[in-house]
Every structure is written in C-alpha cells, then in structure tokens.
C-alpha cells in the first residue's frame, strides 16, 4: 500500500471515529446543559412561590391559580401545583427534580418537575413546579441533527485537505522514489542532483541515497580498473608464453618427445587463458561494460547457435526438435552475449546428452513472458547438485573433468544482465530442461 493512501486512510478512520464519538456524546451533553438551565429556572420559580406564600398566604395563591390556570397554560408547558402532604418526606427541605408525566387538563404531558415540601400553618404541603419538555426535546433533536451534519461536513473537508496536504508533503519523497530508485539501474547512470525539500527526513534520505550510490559507483570504478589491470597484467604474459611455445614448436630440430611435452604445456596454458578470459567476461558483464543497444530476433539467434553446433550434433547423432510458436524480438540487448548464453546451454545439452539423444527447443509466449525451453535427454543432474549448478568452478559430473566450471555461471550472469529468469529442472539419467523467461521490457 502506498504511504499516501495509507496516511489518508488512517486519517479517514480517525475522523470517522471523531464523528461517531460526537454523534454519541453530543445528545447527552446538550441534554445535560438544557436540563441544567431548566432546573435553575425551576429553583428560581420555587423560591419566588415560597416568597409569595410567605407574604400573601397560601389560600390566595390557590384561589388565583385555580381561576387563571386554563387561560395561561394552553400548551400545558408550565404548571404549578400545591398539595397537602400526610407524611413527612425523607428529603424534607430539599428540592427533588425528576422527569415525570403529569396529567394536565386530561392530557398526559412530559414535564420536568421540581418538588419541594414545606410547613404552612402546621400543615405539610408539597409544591410542584413543572416545565413541559416536548419543545425542549424537539429543539434538542434539531440541534443534534444540525451539529452532526456540521461535523460530517467539517470532517469531509478536513479529510480532503489532509489528502492534499499529504500529497504535498510526500511529493519530494515520491520524486526521490521515481527519480532515484525506480529509474536508476546502474551507478554509472546515477545523477546526484539533490531533490529540493524542506522536510528533514526526506532530505536526509535523499542525501543517504546519494552517498550510497556514490560509494557503489566508486566500487564499480575500482572493479573496472581492476579488470583492466588483470586483463593487461595476466593476459600479456600468457600471450608471450603462447607465442613463444608456438615458435618453439615450429623449430624443426625440436625432438619429438620434447614437442609432445610442450604441446601439453600449450594445453595447460590454454586452460589458464580460458579461465581468466571467462572470469573477466563475467566481471565485465557484472560491471556493465557491455552495451545493451541491439535488437535481436530470438529465433534467429537460437537457430544460428544450433547451426554453429551442427558438427557436434552430428558427432553424437543427436536430433534437434525445434518448435517456435510466436515471434519474439529482444529490445535493448547485447546480441553477442545472448548468443554466448544460448551457445553454452545448447552445447551443454549436447555434451551431457546420450548418443542418439534428442534436444527439444521450444519458443512460445506465456502470458507476459516469452519462454525459451532447452530440454535434453541426457544424463541429468542430481537433486543435491541442482541448486549449485550456477556456482563458479563447481563440477559434478564425470564429463566435467575437462571443463573449468564456468559455462553455467556465464549463462546466469548474462541472464541477470538482461533480466531473464532461468528455471532448471532435471531428472537423473533422463534429462535436463532449462527454461528461460524473457520479459517484454528487457531493459
């Protein structure tokens, strides 16, 4: 998941939680506030009633109330009732407030009711002052609804702003990813331009990548220099020896026995020279000293290799079955490297094959890949050895006595260089199959 998506996602979850919390808490809070206000008012009214009773007496009030109640209380919003009590309540002298339904004028209406008991003329009375709740509840509902919508809108706006902000904040990071991580395949093509950002972490990241790439590049340069030095310093003496041996051999006065020994030395020297050349070859590919600027039709290259090996096929009387279902053009490749890779694979398929054996070469498209399979009916590779066949200088089979164990490492290096995936499967005494998966975008 992308960081930007993640951040936006977490933000959205957080905001949604806020909305839910407000949705739950808001009605409770509003109700509390409203009740608080009503209660204050009820207390004040009760106090006022008590004063009136002290000054004017209870009888007047009752009389007054009874005659004017209807007229002033059409909506049953408020009411006052005074009634005698026959027992002493537990909370005498204290006000109690509760929500209760009161029947007023034959209509049951929900009220907030304050009740207070008092002594008048040695008689216990209870005064109840009520305020209707229906309007208040409606108001509550409206306020709740309004506030909730407001919160939702604010959250949406803030989520949008968040997204934009995150995008803006991460923009330098995205640039680091696309400019420095995705497009750079080789230290030589690395551009050390700094990405402009005021964010410390990104600037640090960018700087670290730069420093790392510069280190890698210098390691590459050192290796390149090493390769050049080895090439010159080892291949020159070999060259001298080789030519000297050739000159000695052309001397007609050389005794035959000595000549045979010198020829043996020539073979040893060839071995040394081939190992050094193969190692240099691998290093050069790994050091990206080969260009990938050619197009090659894979079928053409494969068939060229088979042609080139015609004699060896004839020698062992091996039949090649070619099946090419789709065309495949390699872009940006190195033709001579591809040729070498296929040559080594096909020549192995011959070398480790049986007399009158067979080789199946198949090229076909499978989904996003082009598959080239080279399958032989040879001696196979045992399961223990299979994971190590691409290791340098590994020789497992008796036929390997005369090889230096660099054929398959070269194949792997070339395949890696071209981003070609290799799979190998083998059954001992029955054959080996190498499957090469070429992707459409090779570079």
């Amino acid at each position, binding site marked *: 998941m992308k960081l930007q998506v993640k951040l936006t996602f977490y933000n959205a979850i957080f905001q949604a939680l806020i909305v839910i919390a407000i949705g739950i808490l808001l009605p409770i809070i509003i109700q509390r506030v409203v009740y608080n206000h009503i209660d204050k008012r009820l207390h004040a009214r009760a106090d006022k009633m008590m004063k009136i009773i002290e000054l004017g007496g209870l009888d007047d009030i009752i009389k007054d109330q009874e005659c004017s109640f209807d007229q002033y209380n059409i909506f049953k919003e408020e009411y006052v009732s005074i009634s005698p009590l026959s027992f002493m309540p537990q909370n005498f002298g204290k006000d109690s407030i509760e929500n209760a339904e009161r029947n007023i004028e034959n209509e049951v209406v929900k009220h907030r009711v304050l009740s207070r008991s008092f002594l008048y003329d040695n008689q216990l009375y209870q005064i109840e002052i009520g305020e209707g709740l229906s309007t208040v509840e409606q108001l509550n509902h409206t306020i709740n609804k309004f506030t909730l919508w407001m919160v939702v809108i604010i959250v949406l706006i803030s989520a949008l702003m968040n997204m934009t902000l995150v995008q803006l904040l991460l923009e330098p990071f995205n640039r680091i990813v696309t400019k420095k991580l995705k497009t750079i395949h080789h230290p030589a093509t690395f551009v050390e331009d700094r990405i402009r950002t005021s964010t410390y972490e990104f600037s640090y990241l960018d700087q670290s990548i730069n420093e790392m790439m510069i280190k890698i590049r210098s390691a590459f340069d050192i290796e390149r220099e090493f390769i*050049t030095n080895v*090439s*010159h310093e080892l*291949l*020159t003496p*070999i*060259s*001298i020896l*080789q*030519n*000297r041996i*050739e*000159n000695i*051999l*052309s001397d007609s006065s050389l005794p*035959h026995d000595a*000549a*045979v020994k010198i*020829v043996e030395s*020539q*073979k040893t020297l*060839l*071995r040394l*020279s*081939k*190992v050094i*050349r*193969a190692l*240099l*070859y691998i290093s*050069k590919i790994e050091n990206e*000293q*080969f*260009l990938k600027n050619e197009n090659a039709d894979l079928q053409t290259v494969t068939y060229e290799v088979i*042609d*080139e090996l*015609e*004699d*060896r096929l*004839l*020698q062992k009387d091996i039949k090649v079955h070619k099946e090419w279902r789709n065309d495949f053009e390699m872009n940006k490749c190195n033709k*001579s490297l591809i040729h*070498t890779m296929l*040559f*080594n694979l096909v*020549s*192995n398929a011959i*070398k480790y094959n049986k007399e009158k054996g067979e080789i199946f070469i198949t090229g076909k498209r499978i989904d996003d890949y082009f598959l080239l399979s080279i399958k032989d009916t040879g001696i196979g590779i045992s399961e223990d050895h299979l994971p190590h066949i691409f290791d340098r200088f590994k020789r497992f089979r008796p036929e*390997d006595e*005369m*090889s*230096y*164990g*660099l*054929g398959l490492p*070269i194949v792997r290096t070339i395949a890696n260089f071209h981003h070609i995936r290799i799979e190998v499967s083998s059954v001992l005494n029955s054959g080996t199959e190498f499957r090469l998966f070429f992707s459409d975008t090779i570079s």
Partner: protein
Amino acid sequence: MNVLIVEDERQLSHEIEIFLTKQGYQCDVAFTGKSASEKIYVNSYDFVLLDIGLPDYNGFNLLREAKQSGKESAFIIVTARGSTDDKITGLDLGADDYLSKPFSLLELQARMQAILRRKHGLKNNTIEINGFVLDIQNRTVSFKNNPINLTKKEFDILHYMALHKNRVITRVQLTEHIWGDVLEEDYESNYIDVHIKNLRKKLSVYGNTDFIETVRGIGYRLNMA
C-alpha cells in the same frame, strides 16, 4: 612485405618478430607510440601490428593520425582489454582487423593473408591440394568439379591447415581458430580429432587423403608440394 610491430612488451614483440621473419616478412619494431608514429611517418609498411594499450600514446590516436596522413598500410589492432567497444572503435577508425591477447601467431598470419587477399581483390581465390579445390570466397570444396559437402567447421579446419601447409598445427591452435571467440566449457576436447576424422572420411570418397598427416601427440600437418 614490411611489417611494423608496435608493442611495448618487448618479449612479446620479439616472439612476433621471430615468427614473422621466419615467414619471410621484413620486421621493424617500435616499443613506444612516439617511435611508432615516427616510423609510420617515415617508412612505408604493408602491415602495422598495433597494440592499443601503449603506455605513452593512445593507440587509436596513432591509427587516426596514420589514416589521416593517407598511409596505405593495413592495420591490425591488438588489445588485452578485449572489449567489443575497442573492436568497434578500431574498425571504425579504419583498422583492417582486430586480435585480442592472447592470440595465436598462426591466427595472426591467417588474418594477414586474408587482408592481402581482400586488398588485392583476388577473384580467383582457390587453393588446390591433391586435386581437391578449395574456393575461399564461397567456402566450398570440390574434386574434379564434384562438390563435396563439408560442414562450416570442417571447411575452416581444412582451409586453416592449407594456409599453414607443411607445418604441424596443434589441436590447441586449431581449437583456438575455430572456437576461439566462444567462451565455453571445454578447455580440452576431442572435437578436433572428430572433425579431422569426418573430414578424411568425406574426402577419401574422391581421392587420397594421405596429405592430412597425424603427428602423434602434437597435432596435424597438411603436406603439400
């Protein structure tokens, strides 16, 4: 034929000189780019064997200068770096051929002869051995106008032995010639012997193949008057 050997490794240039002198070439040597430049300017050579990796001079510049001054010499560039880039650069600058160290002296001689053939535009480009006719241009062999079906490698081997007639060619030299560019597994194989066996078999249908002689423990020799 005059050859200038431009090579800073004295031992190497000495071996090349011995070989080419034996083959009848007049050899001159230069150990530095500077002296090579002077020699090319003053003398006229048929061949210049030029090591690209000179300590004092960029071999490519030397080649460029010589080509610009209109020298007719054929240039064979030699490098120990063995990179394809060098090869392309050299050939683009007008070099006639390219060899990577280490190379066989027989290979050098074969390349020089090929350059000569190209330069002189030899149309009738055939070698005759005991009635067998090798057409170098079309890479075919025939006997009294009967074409003989050889594989590419078999033709290469026969041609190479004909070029170096009357001298022993070791298996290593033949291997290097026909598989030299290929970095493959075997450092010692019997491929050459099988090739020769098949070659003899195919030729013997038409005539005597005793001219291909096996020199025990060493290699092969093509005997030709």
